[in-house]
């Protein structure tokens, strides 16, 4: 009997705030609030919803695609039709789009790109994200600038000896960021020599372990560390610091013997830059992505969406690019590309929250 009482009490506590006044309703299916970028994205959604008087139903799937599908089904049963989605995997987006299409709704996908097939489910499905290859190209620009300023750091024959820490293999961000930075460096006339590359699954601790082993194996043989995200970059930085792979000055912008580059511009990465540890990063704009996605969902929910709609000041793309899903002419009008930004010594302070 006591068990019943306890459970009844728990339920009673949960009962607060169930019934809301009729406001536009938007469902937000968020991959994993433990990730800094995603947490920033969700926080901005809440701010936007409060400002716009929207009933935002935000659910965190804790990195589990099955949970995300369950959450989508639950919201659909509750009558929610319009969604902002940070999916777990590209491959799952078509299935989610079909379920939403079945109730006449729509969705904007951010961060993990939806598949072309997902956007083809209907004209009410959007990409509101940043083309991953641009992050790689920007990394290549930053590296180019670094070696122009510090030509002595290059190996003979304009050679870059790089270590690559990659995100989860097959993840669009891993694939396109890596391809673009490599292609960018080659296009700028460098000879790119990959000393070692391996996945650290976006994680600082895995990156640190890989880096520990690499420092032992390739001491002095590499002149840059390129990573797919800040988490892994900071893991590499920790490893280099622990191994005393440092120099006495930070004239080239870092106290480490080799520059380390990340992507995301998380607050902790910026702090590391302020301490002359991490060399540079690339901002994946959580505010830009969430604002674009939110404005699209809101426009659909209030019946204001028309093809060519401007979201967060951005117009949809008109010409197919190289990266899915914005490489398919049939869905190009559903693709909103939020720009990445280079974050270097010159501008990092402007991205710090305090």
């Amino acid at each position, binding site marked *: 009997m006591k068990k019943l009482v306890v459970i009844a009490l728990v339920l009673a506590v949960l009962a607060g705030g169930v019934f809301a006044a009729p406001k536009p309703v938007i469902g937000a299916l968020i991959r994993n609030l433990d990730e800094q970028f995603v947490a920033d994205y969700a926080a901005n959604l809440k701010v936007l919803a409060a400002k716009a008087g929207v009933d935002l139903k935000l659910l965190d799937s804790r990195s589990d695609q099955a949970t995300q599908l369950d959450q989508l089904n639950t919201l659909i049963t509750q009558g929610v039709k319009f969604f902002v989605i940070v999916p777990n995997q590209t491959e799952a987006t078509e299935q989610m789009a079909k379920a939403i299409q079945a109730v006449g709704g729509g969705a904007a996908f951010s961060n993990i790109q939806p598949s072309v097939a997902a956007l083809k489910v209907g004209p009410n499905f959007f990409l509101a994200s940043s083309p991953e290859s641009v992050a790689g190209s920007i990394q290549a620009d930053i590296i180019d600038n670094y070696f122009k300023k510090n030509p002595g750091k290059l190996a003979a024959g304009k050679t870059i000896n790089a270590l690559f820490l990659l995100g989860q*293999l097959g993840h669009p961000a891993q694939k396109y960021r890596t391809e673009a930075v490599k292609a960018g460096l080659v296009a700028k006339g460098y000879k790119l020599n990959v000393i070692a590359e391996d996945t650290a699954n976006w994680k600082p601790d895995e990156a640190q372990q890989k880096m520990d082993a690499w420092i032992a194996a390739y001491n002095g043989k590499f002149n840059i560390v390129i990573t797919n995200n800040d988490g892994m970059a900071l893991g590499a930085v920790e490893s280099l610091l622990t191994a005393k792979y440092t120099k006495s000055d930070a004239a080239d912008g870092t106290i480490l013997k080799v520059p380390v580059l990340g992507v995301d511009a998380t607050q902790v990465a910026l702090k590391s830059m302020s301490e002359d540890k991490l060399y540079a990063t690339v901002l994946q704009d959580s505010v830009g992505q969430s604002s674009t996605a939110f404005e699209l969902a809101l426009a659909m929910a209030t019946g204001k969406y028309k093809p060519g709609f401007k979201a967060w000041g951005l117009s949809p793309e008109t010409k197919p690019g190289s990266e899915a899903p914005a490489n398919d002419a049939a869905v190009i009008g559903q693709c909103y590309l939020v720009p990445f930004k280079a974050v270097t010594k010159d501008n990092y302070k402007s991205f710090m929250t305090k």
Partner: protein
Amino acid sequence: MAANNAAGTLEARKGFRAFISKNTNLVTFITLAVGLGLLTSGRSFEWPSVRNLMIAESVRAFAALGVGMIIITRGIDLSIGYVVCLVASVAASFAQTPDYTAALYPGIDFPLWLPLMAGVVTGGIFGLFNGVLIAYGKLPAFIATLGTMSIARGAQLIYTRAAVVGSLKDSYKVISQGSLGPIPNLAIYVAIACVFIWILLRHTKRGTNFYAIGGNSMAARVSGINVERETVVVYTYAGLLYGIAGCLLAGRLGLANALTANGMELDAIAAVTVGGISQTGGVGTMSGMIIGVLTLGIINYGMTYLGVDSYYQLLVKGFIIIVAVWFDMKKYARRA
């Protein structure tokens, strides 16, 4: 007359109490369901909600049936999540569309039975391995399955190169995503599995052996039960069930990756514990396992429906599990 009446009411009351005490898990489930029904003004009783719940819990139900039997023999299995993850990846790799260039076996269109077979066999092998380690290697189940958990995880990463195994054929996905009329296929599979497990536990010698081993393995041995063999069998059966779970999960998601099914062991163990499968062994029923799964499912579903913050969801779930086990232990402590 009056005295007779009073005695009658007293009897009825006693009977009611006994019923509740005997069926705490069922009563808990019904209370929760009614509570959620009130909170959602009846919408949680509507068919789409019920259907959602069935779909959401079906894969976990297979895992729970497996580990439920293991716990009846006083064992435990921590390898579930990663074994299901490995199985899902193996099954998915044989069910990818042949024109998908990033497929593990690009250009090959495997017959539909192969992914199912490969998945279930993979699960069975892991179960068998667990069973042998525990029964003949005399390793504590906790440690043995902790080891196989890591082996399964490593095998999954090696096999898939840590990549997403996606782009599955529609003919494979429909196995999980299809419906028979209004009833989702997944729920039908669970129902079939339940019948099998019910017969196994209630109407076969083997089932009786499982309870005997869990109740007192020394006594079971003395009474002529081959404890080692039965232990291997129960872990293998569980492995086969995880195999089915993994195959169905891959079909449901249309993909598998290293994050698929992570943490499922905790959900499954928690569910059967809430369902009255005692950690002290020898106690529990098939219906208890399913009620446990549905109870946790309704808690999950309810909290999602009501929009409870995901961090609080974890807290609430944790407390409910602790409370359920607490009462379970008290019940059997009194008996002992």
